[in-house]
């Protein structure tokens, strides 16, 4: 059973981790916006090359997974462990769909010659700054995907604890804190989605 003191410690720690991770992404956001300001046409072309439906589906998938984990937290407070288990499995499946789509999109890009670094040819478009867009695209979606994987590991761990009954309605804190992290990961994507899929010049 987690004592109140332990819960407080973990809560402080998780919020600190989230603040820290936010700063990690912030530098990349800063780079994106500086370069977008300088090369609006190149970034517009980059957005058009990104596969819009994949970005949209991924957003829907992640938002749904956040909803699912919120439902799990709610169910946990009412000690409905079967519902919790199902929700957590749903989150894991949705996370898997997200990652699969991401890999699929990367594969498509790479097969078209859109690789990070250097100057590259994007059909009729002839503009400076295009490689910057894609370097940032791969870096930011890659870094985000790593965080999705980390989140899924944590959710799997929580799911196992629910199954082993060491995580119960009286002591739901681990689930709540992991859910907090998962929402953060989702929130990052909510910024990445317009930046790389929606915002045309």
């Amino acid at each position, binding site marked *: 059973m987690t004592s109140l003191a332990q819960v407080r410690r973990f809560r402080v*720690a998780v919020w600190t981790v989230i603040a*820290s991770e936010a*700063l*990690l992404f912030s530098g990349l956001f800063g780079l994106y916006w500086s*370069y977008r300001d300088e090369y609006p046409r*190149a970034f517009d072309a980059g957005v058009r090359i990104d596969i819009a439906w994949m970005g949209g589906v991924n957003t829907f998938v992640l938002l749904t997974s956040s909803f699912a984990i919120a439902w799990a937290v709610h169910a946990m407070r009412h000690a409905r462990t079967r519902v919790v288990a199902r929700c957590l499995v749903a989150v894991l499946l949705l996370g898997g769909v997200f990652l699969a789509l991401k890999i699929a999109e990367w594969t498509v890009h790479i097969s078209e010659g859109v690789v990070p670094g*250097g100057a590259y040819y994007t059909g009729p478009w002839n503009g400076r700054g295009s490689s910057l867009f894609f370097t940032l695209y791969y870096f930011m979606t890659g870094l985000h995907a790593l965080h999705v994987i980390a989140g899924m590991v944590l959710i799997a761990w929580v799911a196992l604890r629910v199954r082993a009954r060491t995580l119960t309605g009286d002591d739901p804190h681990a689930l709540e804190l992991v859910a907090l992290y998962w929402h953060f990961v989702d929130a990052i994507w909510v910024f990445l989605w317009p930046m790389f899929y929606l915002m045309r010049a």
Partner: protein
Amino acid sequence: MSFWTEPRGVKSWLLTRDHKRIGVMYLVAVLVFLLLGGTFALILRLSLVEPDNALVSPHTYDKLFTHHGIVMVWLFMIPSIPSAFGNIMLPLMIGARDVAFPRINLASFWIFIAGAIVVLVALVAGGVDTGWTFYTPYSTSTPTATTCAAIGVFVTGVSSILTGINFIATVHTMRVEGLRWRDLPLFVWAIYATSIILVLATPVLGLALLLVAADHAWALGLFDPNTGGDPVLFEHIFWFYSHPAVYIMILPGMGVVSEVVSTASHRKPAWYGAIVFATIGIALVGFLTWGHHMFVAGMSTFDVGVFGILSMLVAIFSAIKVFAWTSTMYGGSITIATPILYVFTFIFLFVFGGMSGVAVATSSLDVHWHDTYFVVAHFHFIMVGGTMTAFLAALHYWFPKLTGKMYSETWGRLGCAAVSLGFIVTFTPQFLLGNAGMPRRYATYPAHFQWLHVVSTVGACLLAGGLVVTLVYLIAAIKNGKPAGANPWRSASFEWRSPSPPPPENFAEPPRWDRGAYDYGDAA
């Protein structure tokens, strides 16, 4: 029964969760890296005696100053006080049994060692010649072990973040019953503020290093003008971390100074509230001043103005602390011993170094001084004259608590004199060199700068000697020193209530916060 001997065995040390043992392991590690970084510095200074530098080739020189910077900043300065003394003393000072997450603490130490090993591999396997600042496009195009070094430092950054998280959680949740925020010892406040910077700034460094490593390895061109990249953007990302980083380096030192001044004077700190305010102020405002490293990089004039004024503001916080420390001594009953002597050195070196910082924050003056020895002198006054001196003060102040023994006071004073004098002779001429126009990172130089370089090198030899002597008599005292007792300095602070050295569980009985950390019974 002390934490040194309980539990027994090498494995019990390597896998320990005792914050004191982890702190001691950090202490040993940072001392080794201090000696390594110092050796690079000594070779640099010896080679600079001749304008034509017959001792090392320019390429080797470039690697030496890079290695000196990387080792000193990330393997010594950043962890020195927080990871060593912070780990050992923080729980003791708040009446806790350990830090919030002892296993993460252990992980943090081994991650630090892993990162340090990767850095050392880079130094040996080809070396790095980019300067510790890794400016692009040079860093992403030079055929040296840049990627390896950047990854090594990145890993030590992970260690820093974990330490910061641990300390924040500890201060928030593990204070003994009755210990309110407004009663916290100033060293604890300093470590707390440092931890805020650690968790918020280090990720940005991690990003900068990842980008350099990836760009160097795969020619991403993110900061390469040929692909439309902007090298100045790298400078912004780098300095956004590295300016707060210097506050990671000085705040814990200031915390030590507050403790030693108060204990030595047997008085509570004057203007405690102001010191706390200044500590948090430095931590937060320190995030807004990074552009003052870039006054001549091509930033807009408006930006130069904003960063300049914010830099002035940050300096005021430090000034407040200096006023408070001297006021604490006023009317006290001061025990003259090595720790307060180091604090004395700290005060006037830090004041001069801080004023030279205000000087370079003055934009028109910085145009002349930027990237000259003036800046080198400025930051060494703060980092060596400030932090390293405070580190030595901490070493001498908490030595009896840690070991149960006392070192020879005569040797202590001798070491302090040698270090202080050596420092002054090494770095004061460098202000003049900067004035005269001697740029930094120069392997060879115009002959008219020579005599100042010679004086500086003489000082460096004295400083090195003083440091070595200090380490020698301290190590000797571990074995041969006189027994010190639980509280040789008659301090009111909590850590002195435990035996010297403390047992594994810190306190013989669960502690009670029945009086303040600065309760010397003075009416004032």
